[in-house]
C-alpha cells in the first residue's frame, strides 16, 4: 500500500485531468479540483488515524532505487514531525480550493497550478532522500510563480519573480550543501536514515559549512531576518487562496527542513549555531511585530505578523529542547490554521470593498455581524488568547526557550513582540469593526456559503486545538524526543 505516494500524487493526477477538460466545462474543473484535493485530505486523515504515535520510527515507508548511478532513492516516510504538516497541507489546500471557486480567469490553469503546488508541498514533507526532497522543494516554485504572477494584485509580476529568485537563491546554497553532505559520507548517499547513522563522521568545521548552506535555503522560506523581504510583497500581491497556502504551508517548509535535516544530520553545528538562530528568531518576533504595527494595509499587516509568528516557532526550535520542539511544530500548525483563516477573511472583505486600507472602514461590526465575529475570533487566536490554539504553542515555545539559561534575556525581549502583536490586532479590530459606521459601505453583504465553508472548519480547529492541544502533540512527541536525543549525544 503506497499511501504516501497516493497522497502526494493524487493532486497532480487531478491537475492533469483538469488540463484535459474542455475549456467551457468550468463546473467540471472545479469539481475535479475539489475531488482530488478532498481525496488527498481524506487519505491524509486516514494516515493520521493509522499512525502509531508511540514510536519515533519512520512509518508508511516507501523505498525504491531511483537513480542507482547516484545512489538516489525514491524514499518516503512519515514520523511525528511530518504528520501534522501533511494533514495541515491537505486541509488548507482543500479549503483554499473551495475558497477559489469564484475565480473565472483562466480557471483550468489556476487549478492545475494549485494542485501541482500541493503535490510539491506534500512531497517536501514526505521525502526522506535529500535529492528527492530537493526536487519537490523546487517543484513548489514554478506553480507559485504563476499563481502570483497571473492571478495576483497590481504589482503581481514583480512579486512573482522576486519570490522565485529569492527562493532559488536560497535553494542553490542548499544544493551545494546537499552535495557536500553526499560526498562527505562513505559510501556516498542522499538517504536520510543513512546520513543520520553516520552523522558522527563529519568534522565540526564541515558541519558548520553545510549547516550554513542549508540554513540559507531554509531561512528564505521561513522567512528569517534578513531574508524576509520577499514575503510582504508576495503575500499582498497573491490572490487570497494563494496567500493562505503561502502563509499556511510554504513558510513551514523552512522550519521543517531545519528540524528534519539540519538538526539531526549536523548536531554539532546545530548546538554551535543555536544561539545565533535564537537571536534571529527574536529579531523576527520584535521586528515583524513592529512592522506589522506600522501597516495600514490589512493584508500586509497579517503578512508581517507571519514573520513574527514564525519567529516564535524558530525560538522554540532553537531551544533544542523537547518542549521547545513541541511548541515549534504546534506553532507551525496553529499559524497555518489561524493565519490561513485571517487571509481568507481579509480576502472576503477585499472582494467586496476592493480596498484593504485599515482606515477606510469603521463600524462594520453592526453591518456584517458574522464576518466581524469571525475576524475578531481569528485575531484573538492569533494574538494568543488563552483557550484558543495560538496561546498553547506560543507558551510552549517561550517555555522551551526560557529553560535554556543563555536564552533568558532573549526570551524576555521577545515578550515585547507579544505585546505589540496584541496591540496591532486590537487596533485592527477597533478601526474596522468598531466606532462610527462608514456609510460608504452601506451595501456590503455578509459572508456567503462558499466563504463560510472555507473558514468555519479553521475556526472550529482553533477552539479544538486550544482546548485539546494533545491531539497534535501526542503523535509527534516520540519523534521529537528522538531528535532531542540525537542532539544530546555528542
Amino acid at each position, binding site marked *: 500500500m503506497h499511501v504516501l505516494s497516493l497522497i502526494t500524487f493524487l493532486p497532480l493526477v487531478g491537475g492533469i485531468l483538469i488540463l484535459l477538460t474542455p475549456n467551457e466545462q468550468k463546473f467540471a474543473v472545479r469539481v475535479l479540483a475539489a475531488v482530488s484535493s478532498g481525496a488527498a485530505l481524506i487519505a491524509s486523515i486516514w494516515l493520521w488515524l493509522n499512525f502509531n504515535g508511540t514510536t519515533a520510527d519512520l512509518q508508511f515507508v516507501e523505498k525504491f532505487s*531511483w*537513480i*542507482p*548511478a*547516484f545512489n538516489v532513492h525514491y524514499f518516503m516516510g512519515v514520523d511525528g514531525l511530518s504528520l501534522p504538516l501533511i494533514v495541515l497541507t491537505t486541509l488548507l489546500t482543500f479549503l483554499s480550493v473551495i475558497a477559489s471557486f469564484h475565480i473565472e480567469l483562466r480557471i483550468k*490553469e489556476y487549478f492545475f497550478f494549485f494542485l501541482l503546488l500541493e503535490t510539491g508541498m506534500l512531497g517536501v514533507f514526505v521525502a526522506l532522500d535529500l*535529492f528527492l526532497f*530537493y*526536487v519537490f522543494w*523546487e*517543484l513548489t*516554485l*514554478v506553480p507559485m*510563480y*504563476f499563481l502570483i*504572477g*497571473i492571478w495576483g494584485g497590481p504589482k*503581481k*509580476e514583480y512579486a*512573482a*519573480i522576486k519570490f*522565485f*529568485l529569492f527562493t*532559488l*537563491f536560497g535553494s*542553490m*546554497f542548499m*544544493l*551545494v550543501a546537499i*552535495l*557536500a553532505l*553526499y*560526498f562527505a559520507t562513505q559510501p556516498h548517499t542522499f538517504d536520510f536514515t543513512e546520513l543520520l547513522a553516520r552523522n558522527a563522521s563529519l568534522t565540526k568545521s564541515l558541519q558548520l559549512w553545510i549547516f550554513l548552506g542549508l540554513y540559507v535555503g531554509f531561512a528564505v522560506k521561513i522567512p528569517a531576518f534578513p531574508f524576509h523581504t520577499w514575503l510582504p510583497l508576495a503575500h499582498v500581491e497573491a490572490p487570497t487562496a494563494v496567500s493562505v497556502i503561502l502563509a499556511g504551508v510554504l513558510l513551514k517548509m523552512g522550519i521543517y527542513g531545519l528540524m528534519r535535516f539540519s538538526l539531526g544530520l549536523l548536531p554539532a553545528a546545530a548546538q554551535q549555531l543555536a544561539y545565533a538562530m535564537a537571536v534571529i528568531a527574536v529579531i523576527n518576533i520584535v521586528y515583524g511585530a513592529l512592522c506589522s504595527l506600522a501597516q495600514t494595509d490589512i493584508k500586509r499587516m497579517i503578512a508581517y505578523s507571519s514573520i513574527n509568528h514564525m519567529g516564535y516557532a524558530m525560538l522554540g526550535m532553537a531551544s533544542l529542547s523537547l518542549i521547545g520542539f513541541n511548541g515549534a511544530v504546534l506553532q507551525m500548525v496553529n499559524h497555518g490554521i489561524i493565519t490561513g483563516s485571517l487571509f481568507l477573511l481579509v480576502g472576503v472583505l477585499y472582494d467586496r470593498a476592493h480596498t484593504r486600507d485599515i482606515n477606510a472602514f469603521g463600524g462594520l461590526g453592526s453591518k456584517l455581524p458574522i464576518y466581524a465575529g469571525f475576524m475578531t475570533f481569528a485575531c484573538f487566536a492569533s494574538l494568543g488568547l488563552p483557550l484558543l490554539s495560538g496561546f498553547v504553542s506560543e507558551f510552549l515555545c517561550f517555555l522551551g526557550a526560557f529553560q535554556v539559561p543563555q536564552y533568558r534575556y532573549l526570551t524576555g525581549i521577545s515578550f515585547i513582540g507579544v505585546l505589540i502583536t496584541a496591540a496591532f490586532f486590537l487596533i485592527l479590530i477597533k478601526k474596522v469593526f468598531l466606532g462610527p459606521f462608514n456609510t460608504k459601505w452601506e451595501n456590503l453583504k455578509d459572508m456567503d456559503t462558499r466563504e463560510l465553508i472555507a473558514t468555519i472548519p479553521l475556526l472550529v480547529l482553533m477552539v479544538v486545538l486550544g482546548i485539546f492541544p494533545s491531539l497534535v502533540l501526542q503523535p509527534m512527541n516520540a519523534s521529537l524526543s528522538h531528535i532531542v536525543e540525537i542532539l544530546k549525544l555528542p
Partner: protein
Amino acid sequence: MTPNQIQSLRLLLPMITLSAVAFILFGVDAAAHEATTAVRKAGLWITLLGVAAGAYLLTPQNGDAPVVFGRQMLVWDGLSFFLSWVALLTVFFVALLSEHDKEFDGMRLSAYFGLLLLSAVGLILIASANDFLVIFISIELISVPSFILTGYLRHQERSSEGAIKFFLIGAFSSAMLAYGLSIVYGIAGTTSLMKIHDAIPAFQANAPLALLAVIFIIVSFGFKIALVPFHMWVPDAFEGAPVPIAAFLSVAPKIAGVAITLRVFTLVLGASTLGILQVLAVLAAITMTVGNIIGLQQTNVVRLLAYSSIAHMGYIFLGLIAGTSAGASSVYFYGWIYLFMNLGAFAVVVCISNAMGSSELSSYRGLGKRAPLLSGLLVLFLLSLAGIPPTAGFVAKFYVFSAAYDAGWVWLVIVAAINSVISVGYYFKILHAMYFQAPATDSPVELDLSARLALWLASGVTLLVGIYPQYMMARTQMLASTPAVQQAAPVSVTTTPQGQP
C-alpha cells in the same frame, strides 16, 4: 588491403557517406533551376536519409578499448562515438526546423543541407581527432560551411553582417591556432596527441615557450567555442543567421569545444602542471557570469538564447575541468540534454518567427493564450535550461556540479550555482511575456509536421530523462570509462604504424 586499412575504412565510412550525400545535394542544387516544393522536399529527404545512413554506419562503442585508425591520425572511442551522435542529431533537428522556415521562401536549400552535412563531418572528425593537424582541418571543415550558412539569407544585411563578423573572427582564431600549434610542434617534434602526452617533460623544460603555445591555443579555441572574453561574435552571428542556423551554432561549436577540451587540455596538457585547469576554471567562471548578466539585458529571444548558450558552455566546463571519469560522463550527459532542451527551445523560436516574422520578445506576448501547447513546451525547455526540477536540465546540472565538487572545485560550483539564479532572470522574461502579458493578436500559431516531430522528440527527452535519468546516466558512464588518450597508447602498438611522417 591490409586488415588495418579495412578497419580504417570501416570507421571512416560514416564520414565518407555524409560527404558523398553532401555532394549529391550540391548536384541537386546545381541541377534544379526553380525553387519548387518538390526540390525542397527532395533536399530534405536526401539529408535525412544521409543522416540516418551516417548514424547507421557509426561503429558502436560500448566502453570498449579505443581504436586508433587512419594512420594514427584518428581515434574511435566513447567520446568520438558519443559526440558523433550528438552531431548527427543536431543536423537532424536543424534540417527539420529549416524545412518550413519562412526566411527561406524562394530558395532551393539543397546546398544549404549539403553544407550542414559537411559541417557534421567536421564535427565527427574533431570528435575522433588524435592529431593536432586533424583538429585544425576539422575546425576549418566545421567553420567554413558555418560562415556560409550564417550568411545564407544573402539579401538581408543582418545576415551578411553576422557572417562577415563570424568569418573574420574565425579566420583570426585559426591563425592563432596555427601559430600555437607550430610552437607545440617545435617543442614536442610531433603533432600527434599521444606523443605530445609522452613529451610532457619537454613542455615543462620549455615552460615559457610552452605557456605561449598554450595561451595561443586557449585563445583560439576560446573564440571558436565562445568563451568570454572571446564571445563578441556570437550574438551578432546568431541574430543575423537564419534561426535554424542559430540553433546549429548554439550546439555545434560546443561539441567541438567539448571534444578539444577533453582530449587536449584535460587529458594531454592537463598533466603538464602549467596551470591550464586553473586558467580554464577562471575562464569558465567569467564565461557563465558575463553570459548570464548580459543575457539579462536582451529583448530579442535569439540573442537571449545566444547568451544562454555562452553561459551553458561555462557550466559544461565544470565537468570538463573535473578531469575525472565522472566529469567526462557528466559532460556527455549535459551535452546530450543540452542538445534536446536547447534545440527544443529553438524549435519554438522558429515556429514563432514563422508566425510573427520576428523573434523580439514582444512577439511572445500572450502566447500562453494563443498557443497553449507551444508555450507550455517552451516553459518546459526554459525550466530545463534554468535547471529547475523535474526536468532533465536539473539532473544534468546536478551531475556537472557534483563532478566538479568531487574534484575539489567548490568555489566554481558556488559561482555556477549563483549563475543559475541569474539565468532565471532572463529565461523567465520569456515566461513573463507569454503568460503575464496580453497578446497582440489572437491568431493561433500553426505547427507543421516537421516542427511537431522536433518538438515532441525534444520535449519527450527533456521530461523523461528528468524523471528517469538512470538509463542515460549508465550509458554515459560506460562511454566515459575509456576516453583517455593515454589509455589509447597500448592499443596503438597493436595497430602497426604505416608511413609515419
